[in-house]
């Protein structure tokens, strides 16, 4: 029995009847998962449980990085049965957070899990009693001291608590506790029935990845309802996601410069971001592109005039951008703050299961645009940019290179603007007892949305996985052996989402 025959294989943005997904005993499931994930080309994009008629269904989605397929497999258990499952984390550490989440939501005890702590301590968890002494990893020593930072920060960032164990200025260990912004988004998806409400929810999963999450949602929904979007829709979505990438990467570069106190870079990159987000304003009336991406239609069609305007903006943008990025990467004092700081080796990055930028800076080729292409990426031959060093410098350089790549893509796309139809509401009918999955490469990395419908075709469960999900763990790892004062720059170079994790 080889794993290739034992899973249901699905492509990105497709749906499948639930009964087609092979269901196993947990022990079999476990062996199969280990078998799949020991292969370096696969990584788990989602593993979750949902409740259905007093039974607990577990579905695991394992994407292959080389073949454009996603393996689906499942196991189930009786809700009343209090069986302890043997944890997969010991074999596949990347799964630790999925198991913690399942443990939190359904009270499943995983044996041999190294740190079975609630992920978010949310009000909708199984065990609703408060935790008095919140467990934090600690080391007893006279020489070490603990520094707790947050959840309220000096800068304007989202809430998160960071617990450092330091030896003098050096960090030995960092534990990150998030969950302060838990809004129950996944449940809201099920509760809110209107598609407009759901679209709005998707836009607000993570404020800085508005396009990424809403694209994932609409692709998922169209895939579920077997609606084939026309080229103009895909065109608009591709343009928007590349624009978002440029805008946020530029803003990140500005923030990195601010953290290393490079005033010129901070000012210039900060200024450069503005015309890009202002273009969203011109296009769809919102600088963060809210209301732009809708299932089955686009309310603000992309016109050839907009294309001309965008090309002008990019032309002006590129001149300044090239100059300041060349300056930044030739400035010794700036390089000293970036090189060999916050390093993550390819091996570590693989074990943690990093995705997106963090993976690509550590030599892992993980880019949904090339491995599971969607929208217009299917027609482009996207070559991911890979860096090897995995330090702050690599992450900054990757941003610069990706911006350049995105600009090139935009120029290529803008050559031919497809004509748009008048926006009209399509009546989506979702099939009963189905599962759909959508993978999108947001600027931060791979976004995974999964939907499951019940016998009436209503949403039964909706699962979201932001790229931050895994990458937070990577951040906690990279600060080790670095100085505590280098934490802000490491954090900024990852720029992970708090609310995307908290959901």
């Amino acid at each position, binding site marked *: 029995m080889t794993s290739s025959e034992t899973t249901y294989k699905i492509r990105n943005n497709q749906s499948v009847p639930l009964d087609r997904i092979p269901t196993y005993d947990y022990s079999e499931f476990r062996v199969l998962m280990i078998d799949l994930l020991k292969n370096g080309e696969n990584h788990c994009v989602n593993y979750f449980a949902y409740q259905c008629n007093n039974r607990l269904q577990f579905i695991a989605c394992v994407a292959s990085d080389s073949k454009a397929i996603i393996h689906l497999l499942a196991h189930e258990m009786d809700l009343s049965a209090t069986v302890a499952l043997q944890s997969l984390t010991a074999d596949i550490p990347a799964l630790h957070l999925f198991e913690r989440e399942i443990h939190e939501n359904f009270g499943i005890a995983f044996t041999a899990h190294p740190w079975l702590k609630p992920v978010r301590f949310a009000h909708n968890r199984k065990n609703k009693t408060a935790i008095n002494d919140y467990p934090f990893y600690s080391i007893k020593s006279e020489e070490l001291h603990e520094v707790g930072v947050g959840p309220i920060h000096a800068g304007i960032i989202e809430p998160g608590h960071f617990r450092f164990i330091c030896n003098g200025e050096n960090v030995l260990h960092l534990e990150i506790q998030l969950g302060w912004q838990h809004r129950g988004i996944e449940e809201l998806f099920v509760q809110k029935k209107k598609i407009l409400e759901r679209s709005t929810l998707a836009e607000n999963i993570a404020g800085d990845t508005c396009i990424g999450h809403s694209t994932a949602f609409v692709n998922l929904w169209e895939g579920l309802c077997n609606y084939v979007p026309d080229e103009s829709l895909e065109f608009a979505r591709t343009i928007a996601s590349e624009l978002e990438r440029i805008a946020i990467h530029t803003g990140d570069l500005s923030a990195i410069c601010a953290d290393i106190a490079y005033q010129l870079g901070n000012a210039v990159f900060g200024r450069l971001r503005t015309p890009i987000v202002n273009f969203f304003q011109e296009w769809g009336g919102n600088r963060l592109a809210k209301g732009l991406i809708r299932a089955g239609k686009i309310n603000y069609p992309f016109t050839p005039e907009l294309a001309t305007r965008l090309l002008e903006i990019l032309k002006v943008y590129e001149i300044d951008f090239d100059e300041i990025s060349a300056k930044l990467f030739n400035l*010794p004092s700036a*390089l*000293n703050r970036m*090189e*060999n700081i916050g390093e993550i080796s390819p091996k570590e990055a693989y074990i943690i299961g990093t995705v997106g930028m963090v993976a690509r800076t550590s030599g892992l080729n993980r880019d949904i645009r090339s491995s599971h292409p969607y929208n217009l990426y299917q027609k482009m031959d996207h070559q991911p940019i890979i860096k090897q060093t995995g330090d702050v410098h690599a992450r900054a350089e990757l941003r610069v290179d990706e911006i350049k790549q995105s600009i090139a893509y935009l120029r290529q796309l803008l050559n031919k603007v497809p004509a748009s139809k008048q926006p009209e509401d399509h009546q989506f009918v979702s099939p009963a007892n189905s599962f759909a999955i959508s993978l999108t490469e947001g600027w931060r990395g791979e976004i995974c949305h999964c939907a499951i419908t019940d016998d009436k075709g209503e949403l039964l469960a909706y699962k979201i996985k932001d790229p931050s999900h895994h990458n937070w763990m990577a951040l906690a790892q990279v600060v080790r052996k670095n100085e505590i004062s280098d934490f802000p720059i490491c954090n900024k170079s990852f720029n992970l989402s708090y609310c995307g994790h908290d959901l």
Partner: protein
Amino acid sequence: MDYFFILILAATLVLFALFERVKKFIFLISFQGILLFGIALINLLHIDTLELVLILLETIVVKSIIIPVFLRKLMIQNQLKRVHEVNVPVFYSIIFTSFFILGSFLLSSFLQLPNINSRIFSIGFASIIFGIYFITIHKNIFSHLIGYLIIENGIFLFSVGVGSQMPLLIGLAILLDILIGVLIIGIFVNKVKDRFQSIDIAQLSQLKD
């Protein structure tokens, strides 16, 4: 006037201890070449054309142009950016270096050497000591090459300081030695990098029994 060059040369030693970027090392090596030319020119009393050409060749052409260009090539080929791994923290290195410099100036003042230009002796001595120190604290063979060049510069200073007239033969010999030495050692840096995927000296410890 030669004090001027000598003291700036002393300052470059401090900078060698402070800097960590390969690019800056190469710049300093090149800069030292120019300083050496200044010192040699001022101190050689009866200078004839041939000797001038030789010194010019040795300092400006070889030390501050050919070798830096070659090192630059090495740096680009091996993607060297920084020389981080050091056995002694830079902080202490700077203190040590200051003491090397102060010590060698005081020593040569104290010794009052009869047959040697003690100004040049002091800085040459400091360069050699510093070069050896530089090699011992670094774990990276590219920095060892830099350390070797610092020692060679110190030796050049010695040969200027010893006699007001440097025999042509010795000049030529040093020139040849440095050029060939650096080229061959440089080629070996490449080989080591190819074979070991790193130029960390810790890799080179298989021979011990």
